[in-house]
């Protein structure tokens, strides 16, 4: 059984003028401990809405169907009451732009300590086992081995601050720097602090929404490096939401490409790149400049369809370069595709695409 199973997740937003917008359409994926999964696509394709739905954090005008099973239990079944015990403790999120949402008038460590006090979680999971994170500052370690970080229980401010200091060290910021204010931190440090906050309650799954987007390439590398190490050393599972294909290619083992609210192709990052099956995936790669490739960078003409109207046929049809007759009438469903590494093999690394053609992944 996977750590996290998302099954047929759908999200509708009711619109002010009546009508509904079907933002997420039957999204399903699995995630094992320590696994890194990418969710990629253009803005408005439903990436962020999907993970907000998993956190139970959508606004009141949203309705959700489907299952989000954590170790077999559907946490969406009972509405807010059933999500709350898992939010932050099992499933945590780094919001898009979280690094810019820190409270400017409080020091960083205080902001991290506050939720720890509220959730009464001041011990680190045993899985850390005192493993030492060779964070780049050197010497940062997960002081959880003895659990001596003070099981102060709910409300112990000193213990919470101590724990917050450990979290900062974990993400590569000296604990002493926590006394500083957000404006004294660089962008990369603020993003690290935002990640530390999400880790406060020792989640098993981290949902990270564009965690590297507004960062410089060097800082981006520092942050992706940190995320990978957190997964490898603590078995944290990661869902990385981004529009940046190269980041997913380097960070994640598997990924799903979303278009117009649905997953149009999913598989290992290797199969997505080397045996691309969906024209959208191929065009996305072609739109991404690569440092060493000489191929022309091409934009994808047109725009995604409106999601407040039902789509007949393939939603990608108007922008597709590999159309066949069926595309206009029949919506392609995600199906397991024959690939070099075992067609339709059951298991985690299934390669599936929602395209009528079997050969649309190659050059048209």
């Amino acid at each position: 059984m996977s750590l996290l199973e998302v099954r047929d997740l759908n999200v509708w937003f009711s619109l002010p003028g009546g009508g509904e917008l079907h933002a997420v359409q039957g999204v399903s994926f699995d995630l094992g401990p320590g696994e890194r999964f990418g969710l990629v696509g253009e803005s408005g394709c439903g990436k962020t809405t999907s993970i907000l739905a998993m956190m139970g954090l959508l606004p009141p005008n949203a309705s959700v169907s489907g299952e989000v099973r954590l170790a077999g239990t559907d946490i969406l079944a009972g509405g807010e009451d059933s999500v709350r015990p898992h939010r932050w403790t099992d499933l945590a999120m780094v919001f898009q732009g979280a690094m810019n949402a820190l409270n400017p008038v409080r020091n960083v460590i205080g902001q991290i300590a506050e939720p720890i006090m509220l959730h009464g979680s001041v011990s680190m999971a045993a899985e850390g086992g005192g493993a030492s994170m060779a964070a780049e500052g050197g010497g940062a370690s997960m002081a959880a081995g003895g659990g001596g970080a003070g099981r102060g229980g709910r409300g112990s401010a000193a213990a919470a601050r101590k724990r917050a200091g450990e979290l900062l060290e974990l993400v590569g910021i000296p604990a002493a720097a926590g006394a500083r204010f957000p404006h004294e931190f660089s962008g990369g440090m603020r993003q690290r602090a935002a990640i530390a906050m999400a880790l406060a309650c020792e989640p098993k799954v981290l949902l990270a929404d564009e965690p590297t987007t507004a960062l410089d390439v060097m800082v981006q590398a520092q942050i992706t490096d940190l995320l990978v190490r957190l997964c490898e050393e603590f078995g944290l599972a990661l869902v990385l939401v981004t529009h940046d294909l190269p980041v997913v290619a380097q960070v994640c083992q598997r990924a799903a490409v979303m278009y117009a609210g649905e997953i149009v192709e999913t598989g290992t990052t290797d199969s997505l790149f080397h045996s691309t099956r969906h024209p959208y995936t191929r065009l996305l790669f072609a739109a991404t400049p690569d440092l060493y490739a000489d191929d022309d960078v091409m934009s994808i003409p047109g725009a995604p369809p409106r999601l407040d109207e039902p789509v007949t046929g393939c939603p990608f049809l108007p922008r597709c370069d590999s159309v066949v007759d069926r595309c206009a009438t029949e919506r392609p469903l995600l199906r397991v595709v024959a690939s070099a590494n075992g067609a339709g093999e059951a298991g985690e690394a299934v390669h599936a695409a929602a395209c009528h053609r079997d050969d649309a992944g190659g050059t048209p």
Partner: protein
Amino acid sequence: MTSEGNLLDVADLRTRYPVRRSIADRLARRPRQWVRAVDGVSFSLRRGEMVALVGESGCGKTSTAQTILRMVEATSGTITVDGQNITTLSQRRLRPLRRGIQMVYQDPYESLDPRFRVRQTVEEPLLVHGIGTSKSEREELISSALERAGLAPAALYLNRYAHELSGGQRQRVAIAAALALDPVLLLADEPVSMLDVSVRAGVLSLLDGLRRDGRLGVLMITHDLSTAAHFADRIAVMYLGRIVEYGPARQVVSDPRHPYTKALLSVVPNRDPRVRNAAQILSGETPNPVAIPAGCRFRPRCPIAEDRCADIDPALGPPGSGGSGSGGTLASRVGRAGQYGQASQAGHAGVADVASYPDHEVACLLA
């Protein structure tokens, strides 16, 4: 590197901003401190050419562009546009020339006035510069600018508001507003970083096509080396207010000489998961430009620094010349030390073939 026929020549440009002093500082007569945002930048740009200025945030890319635009005043150095030195021109005499230098900003969600229709956005610069006497004349200029920016037929867009446009279309409107004045020089500050991947290539190709027409030159500021490698003719890598490597785009990418450029290139993620770069992640971020390190400014983060790097501030020079040394005369005589091999990670052992890289310059004693 000033030469005839360049559209833009920037020579030893310096721009500094004062750091605010507290009353206590003043009473104690502590000297005023300066942020040396642009600290000796020289480069040139020809008509029909695109030069990319790359580097981390805070390295002075945007300050360089703002200084060229005269939005901030240079402390020293010269800016020559189309043969005319504009560094110290009065604002009144600058204005007719300013028409020829236009800027495209990073975020078209912020840079367009939400209460303006597309027509007004593109018309405003014409009104400011008093171009087009009649409304119909301006209308024609607006339409041709929009179509030049890839928004054709213009009639389809004229009456729309910014919120009725997609991100790519917005950026095209911003570009059209710049093109309305028929500039010779376009400064584009991260023109696609706020746009969706699927439309980035379109906007970049637009800029590429504009300069290939030969009417204008483009200075593109970006932190994305892949974009720079694909679209620019030359790349200037900036670090702490100084260009540390400068050369033909493909050459800088395939044969980087400065350790900073090498590190930057090594962390660019590859879209092929099978290709794992030996990422050389530098710790920390660009240091404080108030206190630029003595000697080579990259030394505190440099993986191959030697003792002498603390003493000599290397200037741009052909690779292998050991930098010409802006600080001391010693530097110009320092050759390649031959101790480079161990620390270097790229495969270009052996003596640099200077002759084949006439335009490739690097500011490093060890390159």
